[in-house]
């Protein structure tokens, strides 16, 4: 057991730091949170800078255009970019972390050549069209239908909670191609162009007042059969490849950011005299332990991925559970420090507190994660 980095890893970190110090001052000003086209341009611009410097697709396999970096290098990358205040992955999230890795793992050479380079170069944005009004936790019950018509699928139905749908070029879409098969067996994975006729995007307002996700209505949208990744009716398995990427190192930058915020909170409590409040101070101390431990758990999981050479496994569920609840506790504590200031939407912590409420819902609710841990790790009997 060791936590020290190898000389190669330290060299990687040093080069990255030097590069960040050079390029971050050249970034354009951050766009306003409500201006989605500007946010898209900003996020793609950052991705392009990463690409030009050789940091795009760091953790992707080399034959998919990635850098084939080790999980530890990826961890260092996420840690250092966050510490330096670099932009988040933002609108590139689905392309880099869901759709891209799925195509890299399951796509044909032609599909990889068509879709992966634009993601790495920061030219195309993807969104994820999985959830439906009647298929959330029970994703496999999805009902959006696709019929075969020669070389195309004709798709009708609706998706919901689709993040970044308004600014996406492509949607990784799950559709039902065989309604008579058991629910997991009749699903197909398609890459759908968002500008295809019949696609209607209607933004949804989140409780934080922002338009982060949308409803997507599909009315006889024609998608070429060539856009199918994996075999027809094999989409569930293809999707599981994607979902396992959704957990694991996905929160590294956020944990680093939470630890910095915790220091700011303590400082604010000190400056306002609240530091003498022993229960509040103790709550802050416990949060320090919590986020230190989450950082160690990240290092443990990354080392495990490196050892097994594998995709992040169900261990990611353990992390996601602990982290999403810790994040909510962090912002609830921030509210305690702010006092009545916690009711003022102009304070950035207040918006962050609101958005932290999605963490126990998005990408599998906590209840579903507990089921996964109980059934797949602990081997308890499957429920319905």
């Amino acid at each position: 057991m060791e936590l020290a980095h190898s000389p190669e890893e330290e060299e990687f970190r040093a080069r990255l730091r030097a590069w960040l110090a050079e390029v971050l001052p050249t970034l354009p000003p951050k766009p306003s949170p409500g201006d989605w086209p500007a946010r898209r341009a900003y996020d793609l611009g950052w991705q392009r800078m990463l690409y030009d410097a050789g940091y795009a697709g760091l953790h992707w396999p080399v034959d998919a255009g990635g850098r084939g970096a080790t999980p530890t290098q990826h961890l260092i990358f996420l840690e250092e970019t966050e510490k330096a205040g670099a932009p988040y992955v933002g609108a590139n999230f689905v392309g880099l972390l869901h759709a891209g890795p799925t195509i890299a793992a399951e796509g044909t050479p032609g599909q990889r050549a068509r879709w992966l380079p634009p993601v790495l170069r920061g030219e195309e944005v993807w969104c994820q069209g999985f959830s439906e009004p009647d298929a959330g936790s029970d994703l496999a019950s999805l009902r959006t239908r696709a019929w075969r018509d020669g070389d195309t699928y004709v798709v009708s139905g609706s998706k919901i909670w689709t993040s970044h749908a308004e600014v996406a070029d492509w949607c990784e879409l799950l559709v039902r191609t065989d309604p008579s098969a058991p629910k997991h067996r009749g699903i197909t994975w398609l890459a759908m162009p968002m500008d295809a006729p019949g696609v209607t995007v209607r933004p949804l307002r989140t409780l934080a007042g922002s338009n982060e996700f949308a409803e997507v209505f599909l009315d006889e949208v024609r998608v070429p059969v060539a856009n199918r990744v994996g075999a027809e009716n094999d989409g569930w398995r293809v999707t599981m490849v994607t979902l396992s990427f959704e957990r694991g190192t996905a929160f590294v930058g956020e944990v680093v950011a939470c630890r910095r915020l915790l220091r700011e909170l303590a400082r604010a409590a000190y400056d306002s005299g609240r530091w003498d409040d022993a229960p509040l101070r103790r709550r802050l101390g416990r949060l320090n332990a919590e986020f230190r431990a989450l950082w160690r758990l990240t290092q443990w999981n990354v080392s495990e991925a490196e050892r097994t050479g594998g995709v992040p496994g169900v261990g990611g569920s353990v992390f996601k559970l602990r982290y999403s609840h810790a994040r909510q506790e962090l912002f609830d504590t921030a509210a305690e420090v702010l006092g009545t200031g916690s009711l003022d939407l102009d304070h950035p912590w207040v918006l962050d507190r609101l958005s932290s409420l999605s963490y126990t819902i998005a990408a599998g609710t906590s209840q579903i994660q507990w089921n996964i841990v109980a059934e797949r790790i602990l081997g308890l009997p499957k429920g319905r």
Partner: protein
Amino acid sequence: MRFQLTDEQEALRAGVRALLARRFGPDALRAAVGRPGVLDRALWRELGAAGLFALRLPEAEGGAGGGLPEAVLAFEEAGRALLPGPLVATHLAAGEVAGAASGETVVTDVSGGLVEWLAQADVVRGDASGAVPVRSVDPLTPLHRAAKAARGATPAPDPVAVLLTAAEQLGGAARTCELAVAYARTREQFGRPIGAFQAVKHLCAQSLVRVETARAAVYAAAVTADRLDIATARLLADEAAVRGARDCLQVHGGMGFTWESEVHLFLKRAWVRTHRAGLNTYGDDTLAEDLLSGTA
């Protein structure tokens, strides 16, 4: 970075687990409960011979030349097995008190205003004069309360004692999670194993989440020996052990409330350990103060 057990560490853990399964299995545990206050000196010497106390002594001094990670893994196993005795105090005395390393001498200490196993110890470190016996909540940990004067003068806790205690808590927590899962798979109600019910499933899953998070914290503290890492490890391991035992008890229903089931022994030992080296409010404050310091 390779924050995983090495092959040697895996082997060490397996070795300690096998030794304890052979020498301190469920029957021995029950027998120990039936003979309260008596420490099995033959077992103690075997633990010494196996190197539990001398683990971190240099090989030249008859030790195993191990580090904190090795000690943590061994104490995690001790915690799993609910091994009784002043293990941490004796381990810390190895190389300083004659016979401690080999298991000939049983060493206890004054820690957190309490003395564990005073009547059975050959050597007491700290001032135990005037200590009065307590009717201990844990049948496997006889306790004395130190005299008031000695309590007031408690020195700062030894960080290694805190870390090894956290390792024991981690082992206990992992074991109660396993016991809860094993029971949930076999006990049937309403025609199904109770583990098929989500209310039970989620208790078990939450136990595991606490164990795995505490494990990362405890192992990291063993690697760095950093004061704040140790405080973190302690906080998380105490929580995992106490809540894990509570949830395990709940999963066992009426059986969990019996003397006969071993579940209560895990809970009571976890309680005792939370008081060792002073209550963990010490850790909360240390970790809070750290937030105001300059370094990230």
